[in-house]
């Protein structure tokens, strides 16, 4: 069964322990950064930062809010990056994780163009670069352990489990406290559904979640074109052959009729 992660934003206290745990498990070096004017650091996910907690301030229902939410690869059920990859370096594992294999990758960066969440990052500063992204700790999952971020989360924000069960839990929480939660599970349907699910007490667009993604799976965008390929491959050559045959026949006829006179 497919695993997933439920993120309950109402529980997050912004400790960024997940960020540190992720760096430790994946042995990612620290980044030199400068003061950005927020508690967030570094400015975005990067080749050396697979996950990052965003700090958002704003107003909702005429009340000030300060919320924190973790960003990383959402591990789509039907990932755009996997459909874009021409060498199967990006793969969707049956258990949920979308993984990357550098030994196949040719570094074309089409996955970066395709990803609606702008997740894959590229090592521009290296002579032998790789794509880098959260791989849902598939190595830990294979050992039967929790992903590093979920293991470390002290607030109970991150809940790892079967995606179906997590959806039930999320719906249960919203049902129990309908006035607290927004009636939307981000990731249930976004881009055809993602392994990571978010519930929140602040509308997702106010938090800066991408809301223009739609619910259709991304690979469907190129499906029609790819279906047309074999049809064109059969129809066009036969059509061209027929035209050239008719044209040549006509030329021969002309020659013959001239000779006949």
């Amino acid at each position, binding site marked *: 069964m497919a695993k997933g992660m439920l993120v309950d934003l109402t529980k997050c206290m912004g400790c960024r322990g997940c960020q540190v745990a992720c760096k430790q498990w994946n042995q990612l070096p620290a980044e030199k950064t400068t003061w950005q004017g927020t508690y967030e650091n570094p400015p*975005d996910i*990067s080749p050396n930062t697979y996950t990052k907690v965003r700090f958002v301030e704003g107003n909702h229902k005429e009340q000030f809010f300060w919320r924190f939410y973790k960003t990383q690869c959402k591990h789509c059920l039907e990932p*755009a990056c*996997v*459909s*874009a*990859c*021409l*060498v*199967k*370096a990006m793969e969707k594992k049956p258990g949920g994780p979308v993984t990357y294999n*550098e*030994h*196949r*990758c*040719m*570094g*074309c*960066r*089409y996955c*970066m*163009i*395709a990803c*609606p969440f*702008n997740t894959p*990052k*590229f*090592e*521009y*500063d*290296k*002579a*032998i*670069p*790789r794509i880098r992204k959260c791989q849902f700790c598939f190595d830990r999952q294979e050992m039967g352990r929790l992903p590093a971020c979920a293991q470390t989360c002290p607030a109970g924000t991150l809940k790892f489990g079967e995606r179906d069960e997590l959806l039930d839990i999320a719906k249960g929480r919203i049902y129990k406290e309908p006035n607290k939660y927004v009636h939307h599970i981000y990731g249930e349907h976004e881009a055809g559904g993602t392994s990571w699910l978010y519930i929140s007490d602040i509308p997702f667009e106010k938090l800066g979640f*991408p809301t*223009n*993604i*739609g619910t259709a799976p*991304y*690979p469907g*965008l*190129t499906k*029609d*074109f*790819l279906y047309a*390929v074999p049809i*064109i*491959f059969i129809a*066009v*050559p036969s059509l*061209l*052959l027929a*035209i*050239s045959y008719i*044209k*040549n026949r006509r*030329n021969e006829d002309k020659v013959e009729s001239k000779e006949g006179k």
Partner: protein
Amino acid sequence: MSENISIPAQAEVKGLGEFIRFMISELKPRGKVFTPFNIISGAIILLGIVLIIYRFAKGLGAVTNLSQDYPWGLWIGFDVVTGVAFAGGAYTLTCMVYIFGAKKYSPIIRATVLSGFLAYAFYAGALLLDLGRPWNIINPIIGNAFGLSSVLFLVAWHFMLYMITELVEFSPAIAEWLGWKRLRKFLMGLTLGAVIFGITLSILHQSGLGALYLLAKGKIHPLWYSEFIPLLFFVSSIFAGVSLVIFEGTISHRVFKDLINPNLHASYEKIVAGLGKIALGAMFVYLFLKILVFIHGKNWEYISSPMGYWYLVEILGFVLLPLIIYIAGVKGGSIGLIRAASIITIVGIIINRLNISIIAYKWDAPIRYFPSWIEIEITLAVICAEIWAFRWVIKRMPVLNERSDYKWMH
């Protein structure tokens, strides 16, 4: 065509020793070496080679302005996406000559196929510079990792197959150059098959280049993003290619004046007028499609914004305007107008392809991409190298003229 206007027949190059001697003599430059063009383009190519070595030693970040927001820049948007559109003349003209039997284009067919082949070899070859791990480029061809659901997989295969196809289409000229009669006969027999295969491949990969951007939904401005991008790319590659043939012919006829068959000189105006007709036909269809997509997409609301004005510049200034000039040129039989239209069309295609790949891509990003001087320099070096290769072949092989023993310019 009489004997005296053709290139004299050449003896067959026999044996390995003679072949090597022949190649060495052919590799030597013909004509004046230190012309202003050679000095400038030579310097650009030399600097380009140095910078390419630097790029592979230090990585893409050291030479380009590419970023996590803009993974594809000038080398993809201009060299590959735009360059391949301009190579569309080859499949359009081979279709006219070999399928529809429009023999009047025969005299320019070899030059067109040659420039098409070189465009793929150099511009698609420039893709290697942009790949982070270029040695893995063989993975989609051999190996166990076929990403069959990827449009890029299709485009990569079609690039490769189409380059082989164009080489086959051009190969009789190489056989004539070497005086290999029997091989030439065999290769001539492959032409029709190669042409049909090549047209099919071209339809698919010209549209496929557009289909790549279907996945960038939400990242490309709605005025440029639609599910019709593949069709628009295909139709525009017809008039892009034909316009480039017109433009290239204008230059070739000055630079290679002495190499051109006099009969071609005589029939050249007719050919250009015919090319103008093809271009305007395709442009008319394209403009119609563009209007259809615009209305279908309910895009009025975007027009009164900076991107909207830019869209209008592209459509009115670089599609409608050259279309009108083409019509005026074809109706009035004015070569000058057709040439002017072809130049505006070429600029328009560059604008259109850069719009989709760079300018309208993440148009609202806080930090926009602009190519670094090294990206531009290396692109110029690739263009100069292609011109050198084109000139080398033109001056040696029967491309603009036929040899007295092989007639192909019917």
